[in-house]
């Protein structure tokens, strides 16, 4: 029983570490042009590093037919865009100040982050 409880505790720590503490690797795009694939419940890449002070152009390719994937929202920038299946969905972001900018679907099931440095 003790073993199981220890295992449970380890599992909880692992969940906390994996989803909250671990900083996933960022994919760097110094030209600020990023192609993002929307499929299987995720944005790929989802941790994107871009240059601050320059316009960012994101191109979303939506393969996922799930209704969740229909919309991408940039809450800090007050931008939202409908993602059409099989279409070139471009989102032009204004020049970003240094910082982190989240983007997600309406349900917050698909999540990504832009880091402007």
């Amino acid at each position, binding site marked *: 029983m003790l073993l199981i409880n220890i295992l449970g505790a380890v599992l909880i720590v692992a969940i906390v570490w994996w989803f909250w503490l671990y900083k996933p690797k960022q994919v760097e795009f110094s030209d600020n042009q990023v192609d993002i694939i929307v499929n299987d*419940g995720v944005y790929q890449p989802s941790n994107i590093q871009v240059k601050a002070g320059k316009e960012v152009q994101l191109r979303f390719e939506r393969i996922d037919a799930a209704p969740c994937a229909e919309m991408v929202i940039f809450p800090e920038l007050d931008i939202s865009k409908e993602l059409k299946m099989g279409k070139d969905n471009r989102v032009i972001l204004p020049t970003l100040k240094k910082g982190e900018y989240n983007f997600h679907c309406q349900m917050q*099931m*698909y999540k990504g982050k832009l880091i402007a440095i």
Partner: protein
Amino acid sequence: MSRNNSTTNQNFIIEGASCASCVSKIEKALNDVPGVELVEMNFAQRIVSVDGKVDSSTLIKTVQNIGYDAKLMSNESEQDALDEKAQADEAHYKKLMRNVYMALGLGVPLMLYGLFIGDMSVNSSTQRIVWLIVGLVTLGVMVASGKHFYVGAWQSFKNHSANMDTLIALGTGTAWAYSMIVLIAPNMLPEVARHVYFEASAMIIGLINLGLAFEVKARGRTSEAIKRLIGLQAKTARVIRDGQELDIDIEQVQLDDMIRVRPGEKLPVDGEITEGKSTVDESMLTGEPMPVSKKVGDKVVAGSLNKTGSMLFRATHVGKDTTLSHIINMVKRAQNSKPSIGRLADVISGYFVPIVMILAVLAGLAWLNFGPQPSIAYAIAAVTTVLIIACPCALGLATPMSVMVGIGKAAEAGILIRNGEALQTASKITTMILDKTGTITQGQPKVTDVLMYNQQTEDKIIPLIASLENGSEHPLAESIVNYAKEQAYSISQVSEFDAITGKGVKGMFNNQRLLFGNAALMQQFDIDVSEASDKAQALAGDAKTPMYFALGDTFSAMVAVADPIKSDSIAAIKRLQKKGVHLVMLTGDNEATAKAVAKRVGIDDYIAQVLPQDKLDEVLKRQDRGEVVGMTGDGINDAPALAQADVGFAIGTGTDVAIESADVTLMRGSLHGLADALAISQATIRNIKQNLVGAFVYNVAGIPIAAGVLYPFFGILLNPIVAGAAMAMSSLTVVSNANRLRLFKPQNH
């Protein structure tokens, strides 16, 4: 600017242009293309208009070569995109339903077997073999109809994020894996815990797919308003070129083209009538049910329906510049914005999934440590149920779905709401400031009373007054000239015309002096008007402006002019008051007029002789007192107050400026639009709250029950299948409840 006949005008949407310097770069590149005659780019709208005899693909390529992207603009493409989306949704729905049949096809018989025929325990080797086969079949079904959940869960796990798929995959996976352990190594478990849960896995996959399928269907209906607005656009226009009438595609219509519309036809673009008259049904744009009569010089808008006569009009706005296109864009933008009420749900759903996973582990441990035997079986059931019931997608959907329907609903009633925030604030307004002129009243003074004195007759005197006033630029003069024209009186030339500031006008006709103005003017020329003084006072008390006319030295007539109250203002004001909104009327007019109008419409609180700055101060003063202030005005002199108010309502005639500057634009001139806007806003916010409560009940109450808090007291432990059904229901409930808003009728509230 002239265009030769072979020249065409093409409009492109430019993507990637973010600075003013991009504009010159794009214009220069396009200008260099052989055959291009004129390039104009609208930076705000990112639209470039190109005249010339050039293939569109060449132009697109040119733009792409300098690092931007261009897309040929077409009105039909929008409709096509919607059709395409509908088709894609239908295909997705069918696929989901196939998954449902497959999963429930296995899950339902298994569940029925467990319930009525045999138990699902594994005690003999035959049972083991049979259940092993069932387990493998279940795995096949899970993969076939639930593959997207598992792939999604894995992808998001790799990305260090967790989503709905994670929960479903973990829940169904746990149930299946535990069952397989029972089969492969039964000795590891106590005899009573040798129970399989294959039916749960299959049923959950089936039910969640079913929920998603219904959601796809219901979502399609939420964007109905946009679909209808786009459907209003005509596809062709009958243009007169070189004396010939040609039916051409709507995209080919150019500014200043002359367009013919016959009865029963939709107006293709915005314009100004140059010939003919008709009645036009603008109901889809303004919500105004009565057709409006239009004559030469009047403005018409694309999407409205020509009812009775044939007319010719000049195109003043084409393509994406038409009022209808602006409206569609605005509604779309607003539908995607969220009021702050939804932000809490966003924060919660952002952290939800990992928290639920932790809760599931804790629930499992609690059952193992403190639960009755077979504790492992209870633990598995609890873990699976917690994972399955907790999907926060309903929470995430609660706000956007209602906002989408609410803003669409408003658009159908001719109310354009700029964003979700305005929608929310409008529901909380405690004080509504109404500008008098143009808002409560028509804003156009009209002759209301004509009284003759000293044996004069109207057909002799009115032509004289109108002839005299024809030279004046005073707004009241216009009303008298219009009145004379309506009565078909002729207007003549008056000599020695003179305007006497603050008093009136003077002139000569047939060697007789004409005087028209206020009492002070009469006094100046020693004309006795005492016989009309009682009547004049009564008229003034009725918000009318009396004016005297003297022919020679004889007082001959009195004409009263007033800005009439709109026919439905009183009813609309009653509706607003019934909602508990405190109404304040502001006007630049004098005290007597203000008082009379306020009394007539039933407003107790009014302030007269205010300047635009005073209107702003009034808003500020009330905001300081903690009131949530709405301001309604007709746009220009009210602008500072409209901007300062918590929600500014512009009574718009649909001009670009009004649409762009106000939080809410009431396309219909009536104050009923205002009452409707508040009603829709309140209904939408109520709907969002219902959705949030519903979603929270599923999640927040569902999780502890799933974890088994009720077990020690009532012996209730939720079945994982029930949890699967509840989860499928949660999103569906939210979407359906939002759809319920479509049936809302603001007039009844």
